[in-house]
């Protein structure tokens, strides 16, 4: 069987297994939207500050949903893969001629597909509630593509954690750290509006800020390569580093087995 065929088979199993469990899907979709609703209403008055880039906070906040959904999906993907490792499924798969990259990418397809589904839902809900995308239809499509690319990259984080630890609990234990990283970014305010110097330095170098700012640039302000390209570069770097790390860990795990 070709590598693409192996990927399709393993991926189909992962996707159907994930979508059969509403408890894995509903929070990923619902939680970012609840936070968006609360933040868009609670921080609406901040748009009155001179120089704030938009007069509707929902335009500013919508992109956080995409990154948050991708983070949730990373944990879901990792947890599912770690469960497969714990049950011995991955070891049995490793005894077959299946390619390692197909095993990894296929096993994380469930989590990644939730993020893809979520991204479409966030965009539709955002548009229904009046989000205006300055770059138009092409910008909306680019935003969706970047969100999906980010979700696939983050699935690599889940995969690496899963293979390195082999424990669903350990993967879930990392979620608070990713959550911290999100809150220490430009998710709530533009960099220029962050008053505390230490917070601004952290937010400036936080990889999630690059992703958020890249997506946000498409919604507010128009096409801007200076924010879009770094976002693509960061997502690409995360994808390569994490999947390479996961492949290395899987090789070591298989050798041990």
């Amino acid at each position: 069987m070709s590598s693409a065929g192996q990927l399709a088979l393993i991926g189909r199993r992962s996707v159907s297994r994930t979508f059969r469990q509403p408890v894995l899907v509903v929070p990923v979709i619902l939680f970012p939207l609840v936070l968006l609703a609360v933040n868009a209403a609670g921080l609406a008055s901040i748009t009155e500050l001179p120089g704030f880039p938009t007069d509707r906070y929902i335009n500013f906040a919508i992109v956080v949903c995409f990154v948050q959904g991708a983070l949730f999906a990373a944990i879901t993907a990792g947890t599912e893969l770690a469960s497969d490792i714990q049950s011995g499924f991955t070891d049995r798969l490793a005894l077959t001629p299946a390619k390692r990259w197909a095993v990894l990418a296929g096993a994380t397809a469930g989590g990644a597909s939730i993020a893809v589904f979520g991204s479409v839902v966030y965009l539709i809900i955002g548009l229904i509630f009046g989000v205006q995308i300055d770059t138009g239809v092409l910008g909306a499509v680019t935003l969706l593509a970047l969100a999906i690319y980010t979700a696939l990259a983050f699935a690599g984080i889940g995969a690496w954690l899963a293979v390195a630890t082999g424990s669903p609990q350990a993967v879930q234990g990392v979620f608070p750290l990713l959550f911290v990283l999100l809150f220490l970014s430009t998710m709530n305010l533009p960099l220029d509006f962050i008053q505390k110097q230490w917070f601004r330095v952290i937010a400036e170098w936080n990889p999630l800020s690059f992703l958020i700012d890249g997506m946000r640039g498409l919604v507010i302000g128009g096409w801007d390569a200076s924010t879009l390209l770094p976002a693509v570069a960061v997502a690409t770097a995360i994808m390569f580093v994490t999947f390479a790390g996961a492949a290395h860990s899987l090789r070591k795990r298989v050798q041990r087995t």
Partner: protein
Amino acid sequence: MSGSTLSVAMAVLRRVMIQTFKNPAIIIPSLAFPLVFLIAFAGGLSTVASVPGFSFKGGYTAFQFVFVFLQTGAFAGIFTGYRIAEDYESGFARRLLIAAPHARGIVLGFVLSGLARFALTGVILWGIALLAGMNVLGSPLQILAMWLLAALLCVASTLWVTGLAFRFQSVDIGSFMQTPVFILLFLAPVYVPLALLTGWLKVAASANPVTAILDASRGFISGEQTKVALAFALALGLAALMGLWAGLQLRRAQRGVA
């Protein structure tokens, strides 16, 4: 309260405390989440204090600290609830229900455990906030009143999750334990005072009992008392209501093992 009920409660408290101190991973999440919120809100959103119409004597760090402190109280209760659900999964809770001479002591023990966890995380949170330079303008008595309000929220949330754990007897109910509490907390004036909210959130926040508790606590820390009687009445009412819920579910669980 009989001595036997109290002895059951103390045994449950002792067990939860031993588990907590033997495994720091249990206490870390209940401390980490409020800390993240404190850093993100007080640090990252301090510009909000410049919004026209915003005025709070203690500064934005104190304004946000109060919310995070109340959240700490509520979440200490929720994390205690996870332990009860785990006890059900392991079969320990059923054995406890059969063995305890006064089952109400079990609920009391979990409430005391929630309060003990809250006291521990609350003290650490206060220490960090004070080290970060938070302004406290309230008197010691007002700060004590603020602790009491947060403790009542902790009691209410512990009783809520205790009832859920007795009812569903599984850790799968975890997200249902925290989501309503999370939503109730965030439908209060978290980032700005009620007067600056607009639209649906203002309507929701005005009807939310947590708003009065939050406003009163913010009044205590800034030394400007407001809505004190209402806040205590609501917090006590919430705790009593949740006590009723936990009691009903305890009776149901007892029938299940009889």
